[in-house]
């Protein structure tokens, strides 16, 4: 019976049976989907409301016709799109009405009001007053409908058929495709971007969530002095490996559950936001799934070595804090640069980051989402990462062996470095 295996199984069993694992497994995708879907859902929802608008004509004769033009507009529920208050008023009286409608708008009795003078339709603009200019849908819709109305007026004035004119001036869509070595795939930049964010978030959650878990398990064994009993049964290296592999397997179990949940959702046909689906469409590519898994696993292993070192040297979360900040920065760097490099995923800096540990796991996953990465770069990146894991594992093993049995004060960095060469 292999003791290492017994210890790994214990980590796995305890990791999966915790409340935090179950909650994390269920909540993480829910939150992630919510983050991307709620804004889309909200903006769709506001499209489906009746807007209360005031139309004030000051000496002009455009808005009366416009009010009639849009009075037939409806929303999906069949209710009218617009609830219109129309007034034609002399310039002298306009200020009184404007004050009146301003009060109504601020009291949320009106969503907005528009003022048109004689210049509208030729040189001037329709003026819109609202307490809330972020009502993008309303403003966009109003602008579009007013433009339609004015164009209809102009074409009629030229003696053209309005319907014909509309079909002649129809816009052309631009459909974007991403080119890869395997050919072309229909793709949209925002989808790629959202996809990159989702996969980087998964990577982050896994590495830090399970790394921290590994560290806390060590704190428990150290504080209860269980570690001394363990060392009288197994080697410190076995203890370290059991933690790293055990937590890694818990992480993999979680990913597997997410994949299953994703498949169930896909099969049940629940409509997700187009961009989320588009961003996740890359999962259909086996090479991406493979390299994502490789980067996730090796990235976790690399960072977990650091967590094992910190867990062996420190004895509480507070003590561990100063050791973890810089590591978060390392992993965050590609994400911070992402906003600057998003348009050049194949720039030299981005390629460098995606090849060199410890940045490569995050940077490579981002690049794979945003552009097409040559196979040799994937392989080289994985090889470099694997070598870094081996080196980190060796150093961690040396430090762990001494650190985990230390009692009393937290050692200084020079002391810790000395342990690497210790007997």
């Amino acid at each position, binding site marked *: 019976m292999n*003791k290492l295996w*017994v210890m790994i199984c*214990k980590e796995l069993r305890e990791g999966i049976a915790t409340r935090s694992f179950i909650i994390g497994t269920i909540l993480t995708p829910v939150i992630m989907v919510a983050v991307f879907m709620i804004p889309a859902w909200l903006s769709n929802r506001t499209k489906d409301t009746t807007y209360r608008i005031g139309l004030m004509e000051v000496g002009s004769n455009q808005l009366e016709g416009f009010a009639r033009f849009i009075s037939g507009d409806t929303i999906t529920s069949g209710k009218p799109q617009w609830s219109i208050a129309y007034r034609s008023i002399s310039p002298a009286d306009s200020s009184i009405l404007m004050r009146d409608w301003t009060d109504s708008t601020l009291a949320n009795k009106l969503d907005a009001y528009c003022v048109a003078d004689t210049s509208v339709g030729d040189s001037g603009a329709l003026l819109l007053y609202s307490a809330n200019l972020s009502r993008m849908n309303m403003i966009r819709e109003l602008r579009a409908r007013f433009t339609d109305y004015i164009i209809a007026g102009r074409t009629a004035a030229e003696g053209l058929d309005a319907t014909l004119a509309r079909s002649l001036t129809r816009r052309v869509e631009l459909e974007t495709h991403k080119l890869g070595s395997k050919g072309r795939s229909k793709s949209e930049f925002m989808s790629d971007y959202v996809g990159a964010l989702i996969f980087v978030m998964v990577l982050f959650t896994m590495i830090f969530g399970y790394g921290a878990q590994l560290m806390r398990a060590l704190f428990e064994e150290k504080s*209860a*002095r269980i570690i*001394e*009993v363990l060392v*009288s049964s197994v080697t410190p290296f076995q203890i370290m490996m059991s933690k790293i592999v055990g937590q890694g397997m818990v992480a993999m179990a979680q990913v597997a559950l997410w994949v299953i949940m994703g498949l169930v959702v896909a099969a049940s046909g629940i409509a997700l936001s187009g961009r989320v689906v588009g961003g996740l469409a890359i999962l259909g590519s086996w090479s991406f799934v493979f390299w994502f898994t490789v980067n996730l696993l090796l990235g976790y292993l690399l960072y977990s070595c650091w967590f094992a070192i910190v867990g062996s040297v420190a004895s509480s979360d507070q003590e561990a804090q100063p050791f973890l900040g810089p590591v978060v920065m390392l992993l965050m760097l590609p994400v911070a640069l992402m906003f600057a490099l998003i348009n050049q995923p194949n720039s030299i800096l981005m390629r460098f980051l995606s090849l060199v540990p410890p940045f490569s796991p995050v940077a490579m996953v981002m690049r794979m989402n945003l552009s097409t990465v040559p196979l040799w770069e994937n392989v080289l990146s994985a090889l470099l990462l694997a070598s870094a894991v081996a080196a980190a594992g060796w150093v961690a093993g040396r430090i762990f062996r001494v650190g985990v*049995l230390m009692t009393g004060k937290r050692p200084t960095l020079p002391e810790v470095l000395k342990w690497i060469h210790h007997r």
Partner: protein
Amino acid sequence: MTVSGFTRLPPPHGLHMTMPSQASILEIEGISKRFQSVFAVRDLSLAVPRGSIYGIIGPNGAGKTTTIRMILDILAPDTGTISFHFRNTTVAQNDSIGFLPEERGLYKRMTVEDVLVYMAQLKSVPPNRSRPKIDAWLSRMELSEWKKRKVQELSKGMQQKVQFISTILHEPELVILDEPFAGLDPVNQELLKDIVLELKAGGATVLFSSHVMEQAEKICDHLCMIDHGQKVLDGPLSQVKSGFGADILVVEGDLPGAALAVLPGVIAVRSERLRHELTLAASTDHQQLMSRILTLGRVDGIQRLQPSLHSIFLTMAGKNSKTGA
């Protein structure tokens, strides 16, 4: 002061003796450990006879726990060697040792049964073999009803008993107990003592540390006293005691003090009504002396007193610090 009967224990071999290899399960040769400039253990050598109950005795901070940690390879000695001679060489060295650390601790969120099964697995005992033993031990320790409860629900004393079970469940050849009696009530101390004696009877060797000398005196048959990281003396208990300084014989009865004082082997007499304390020379023949005393008058009782470990320790530690050794 400890009281023993008339019978003498086996003849002494002389102090600071070293047992031959095959008779020892553990041999320590000149180990030292320094923390910064302070020696926690200095040039310590000892041999633990197979099948003995061996006590490492000394005050707090004497270096007992450091010594045990070095034996278990938790700490590496700066100098010196530690070697084991286990009978069963098919078992991994780790699995031949059971260890109860001074600071007790178990996985708090595991159940008593799970923690014992797990610890046994780490000693290469599979669950199907450990479970029946666990049941037997829990019932012996009166913990059966706690089997399915989490460790954190148990009292401290109960947790200690569970940890003790995990120390010996895999039937190790060498059981190492660091301050095993600390934190136990008298009833459980007695229970532990009985089990330690049973382990010995079953062929195991028990090495324990204690700073409470009266306790050590009751169970150990070999001991090593250490102070300030150095060995003060070691050997079989009886030999340490009899070899140490003069014997005292207490005679109660209507006897003339002056006649007692001239008996062969008697160095001094302190009489107090019917109680006479005779200080004897080292080579005195006790049997002969006692039969002579009986001829002097009415004797109500004779007791031979040996110095307690405590007083031996105080004398030896004092001597050591004076000589600056």
